[in-house]
């Protein structure tokens, strides 16, 4: 029988300190409080002084509360029965289903051996032209969605979830507004994808310490499914809240902050999570999409900055659209050569023309004279924005490419687009094709 301790020496923030012996680092302990049992984890040991992080917060904990060490680390259940279920940050059910106790797995695992990774080669179709055509999502990729509060990033995640061609979805919510949680749950239910999804949602009202378990829980469950041959898409929102929780704990622990109060190991902590995205040789894969809100729309803020160094590109969500400039999928070259012959060309041409259109609009706003070409570009940019960039557009890649050709051919002559003749002959829509001889009057 394990020893019970009932003398807490110090309570500060979410951390309590007691005198105990024979305790293992990172071991879990159960604290009996008036409000029921609370979980805590050993985060530092100095002689007999053991500091524990209380996940539910220390509110109401008395110096005489009972502490019992459990001899195990943080775990979560892994079973196919998880599908369709909704849990909170600590893995307790949020729906009316039973608590999951079977087949417990540790939520922290060793890193994948780089020698066992393979070069990613499969596209994940999302039905969103701005992703599929312009910045293709690739299996095992880790991509953040940089945005600011107020942008529809959760709507974007939900849309990707609806159409993404994967076997399994895992949603990790961190510091979600309760409304947003309900939005996800209802959308998943309505769209019929809940049955192949698992939701771990920590809401803004929950103890902030529980927030830091969410990515680990999501990713360790994802890892097991991936090893089982499943293609898993992990959606995380919002990683800035996760980083803020890390900051809160580090400050309570009296660690020396490095940059704007964030702990010195912020990069390592974020990287350890993102790097769990993987394509296992001979098994499944984990792909990670993570919302990162940028405080003050500042990409040099420590959270987006460190994230950018870790991830394989980024999507910028601005004004309700995925911004084509700045957004980048570093892995798109691995897959967009093998989709359709015109994919790369449409990708480049449409963006180049859209960039020129922005220049024209700038000219217009400064009151310069508009040439016919400028007007054409502006017309193009209107159609591009409403028919392609708009978040409500959902088209399979092929139809989206066809739409691209249609927009181009409605507005431009083939020669104005700079597309090689070979592709013009193959893809330029017939009824408006101006190549070759004009029909006789």
């Amino acid at each position, binding site marked *: 029988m394990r020893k019970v301790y009932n003398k807490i020496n110090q309570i500060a923030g979410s951390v309590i300190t007691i005198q105990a012996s024979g305790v293992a680092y990172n071991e879990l302990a159960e604290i009996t409080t008036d409000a029921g049992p609370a979980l805590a984890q050993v985060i530092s040991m100095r002689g007999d002084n053991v500091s524990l992080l209380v996940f539910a917060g220390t509110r109401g904990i008395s110096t005489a509360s009972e502490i019992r060490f459990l001899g195990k680390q943080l775990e979560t259940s892994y079973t196919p029965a998880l599908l369709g279920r909704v849990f909170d940050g600590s893995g307790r059910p949020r729906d009316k289903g039973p608590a999951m106790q079977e087949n417990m797995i540790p939520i922290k695992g060793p890193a994948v051996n*780089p020698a066992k*990774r393979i070069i990613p080669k499969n596209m994940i179709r999302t039905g969103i032209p701005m992703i599929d055509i312009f910045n293709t999502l690739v299996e095992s990729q880790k991509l953040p969605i940089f945005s600011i509060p107020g942008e529809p990033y959760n709507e974007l995640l939900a849309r990707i979830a609806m159409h993404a061609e994967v076997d399994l979805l895992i949603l990790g919510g961190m510091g979600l507004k309760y409304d947003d949680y309900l939005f996800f749950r209802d959308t998943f239910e309505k769209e019929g994808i809940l049955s192949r999804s698992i939701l771990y949602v920590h809401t803004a009202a929950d103890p902030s310490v529980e927030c830091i378990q969410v990515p680990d829980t999501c990713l360790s469950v994802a890892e097991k499914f991936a090893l089982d041959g499943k293609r898993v898409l992990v959606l995380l929102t919002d990683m800035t809240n996760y980083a803020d929780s890390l900051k809160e704990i580090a400050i309570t622990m009296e660690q020396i902050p490095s940059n704007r109060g964030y702990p010195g190991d912020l990069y390592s902590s974020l990287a*350890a999570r993102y790097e769990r995205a993987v394509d296992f040789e001979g098994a499944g894969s984990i792909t990670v999409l993570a919302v990162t809100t940028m405080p003050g729309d500042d990409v040099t*803020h420590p959270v987006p900055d460190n994230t950018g160094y870790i991830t394989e590109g980024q999507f910028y969500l601005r004004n309700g659209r995925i911004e084509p400039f700045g957004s980048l999928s570093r892995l798109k070259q691995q897959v967009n050569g093998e989709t359709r012959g015109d994919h790369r060309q449409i990708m480049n041409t449409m963006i180049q023309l859209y960039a020129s259109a922005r220049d024209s609009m700038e000219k217009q706003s400064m009151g310069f004279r508009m040439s016919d070409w400028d007007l054409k570009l502006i017309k193009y940019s209107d159609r591009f924005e409403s028919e392609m960039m708009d978040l409500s557009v959902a088209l399979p890649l092929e139809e989206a490419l066809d739409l691209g050709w249609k927009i181009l051919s409605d507005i431009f002559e083939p020669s104005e687009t700079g597309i090689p003749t070979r592709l013009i002959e193959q893809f330029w829509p017939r009824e408006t094709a101006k190549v070759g001889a004009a029909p006789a009057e």
Partner: protein
Amino acid sequence: MSQKGSYGTIVGVNGNMLTVEFGESISQNEVGYAILGDKRLMAEVIRVRGTVADMQVFEDTQGLTVGGQVEFTDEMLSVELGPGLLTQVFDGLQNPLPRLAEQFGFFLERGNYISALPRDLTWDFAAVVNVGDTVMAGDTLGIVPEGLFQHRIMVPFSLRGVAKVKSIVSEGGYTVEQEVAVLETEAGDLSVSMVQTWPVKVPIRCFEERMKPTEQMITKQRILDTLFPVAKGGTFCVPGPFGAGKTVLQQLTSRHADVDVVVVAACGERAGEVVETLREFPHLTDPRTGKSLMERTIIICNTSSMPVAAREASVYTAVTLAEYYRQMGLSVLLLADSTSRWAQALREMSGRLEEIPGEEAFPAYLESVIASFYERAGIVRLRDGSIGSVTIGGTVSPAGGDFEEPVTQATLKVVGAFHGLSRERSDARRYPAIHPLDSWSKYPSLIESETLDLARQILRQGHDVEEMMKVVEEEGTAIEDFMMYLKADYLDASYLQQDAFNDVDAATSGERQKHVFDFVAKVLRTELKFQEHAEARQFFLSLTQTTRDWNRAEWESDEFKDVEKKLHQMLAEVTK
């Protein structure tokens, strides 16, 4: 590792730092193993105070208890040196990753260590000394062929004074652990095998003299070789914000640099990038040798999700392996990506040690640690007269892309060349995104300095004009100024920018660079007269286009000569 050390008891655990009470004497940087059930977790002493030592553990510390045992080894953190290092992929502590994967599967479970050099392979040893010869540390005892090279089996670098060869084996196949020679030293007989160990944090100094780096290391990247060259034995750093192309540039350099051996240290970066190198290098041919690029490469890979303390060790492991091959009279290039992650590892540890922090919480000794790392580069004359060199290039990932931060600044103080990447240029798709005005190099270039001065001057003036044009528009710019802008833009677009995805353009030999730059310099020198802005712009547009075609044509092919002729004609027509 030896079992001769003493034992200690854990009295504190904080993250990956252990506080250990020890009985007998221990030394700074000594390695110890924390015992956890049947696992032994490697750790290194980083501070001693009274009877307690602080140790950084190279693994996750979960499950360790106060009162647990630590076994000291009486050895500093060391690597194995011997034949068979080339083509291998190691983690920061020199565990071969592919063999770990074979034995333990997908994951890097803690406490699994494998010796770096395969014990079952035999190598064909041929002695070059005779019994009775006098030798010193670093002298060659024999030769074994290792891929492209004659690998020297050397007298252990740790030998003090002189020794006499007492016996040496005859020609034949031996494994790395078999005795190949016995040396008679002041301290008694010393058995020598093909493998020796060396502490990673101590530079190998078995050479006659260190020389001034002057011979250029051609990277086949025009902007580097022409404007910001690197010398063999020199140092350079590549800072840049994320997405500016640091890693692509490093990969290109590792492929094309004209050195014998390349050591790539992927330190705290994305695993995916290492995987690309890992999977692609074996299939790429080295144009210098016709063999696979992997044959001249060692990869040290401690990616961001692997333990932080091992990240710190990885750069030292890499530089020690580089120095080892330098001792064979080879030129070695060490590419470290990224030194910022290494500095962050120092910062994490310093925080746990509760040291008084310096700027941005980096430890106060950051600068001296960075300086002593880069100082391990150099070109040396060995005792047998041959020349070996270690060139070090490190990328820096400054927070927020701001070069004022401590790691960039500390690095700039000690390197010989600065290749600053700019977000502005990468956004404009001007690759390699090295900023031509901010970057600098202290090494000599393959182009004579007069021409370079002219080129730099035009770049600077062109930039000024460009800034001005943002206000007054093209029409409001004097035609002379406008010409300056066009010339600068021409130099940039047709020479400094290079297409990494075009097979020919991706690598430009030194000879070709001289040839092409000759023409570019001629354009820069020629006084061109145009009446209209549009006319001038049109001329330069087509000149740029044609020069780019030239860059894509195979060196000295008919196409190359045709385009060259055309370029001279174009220039002649406007100077008539």
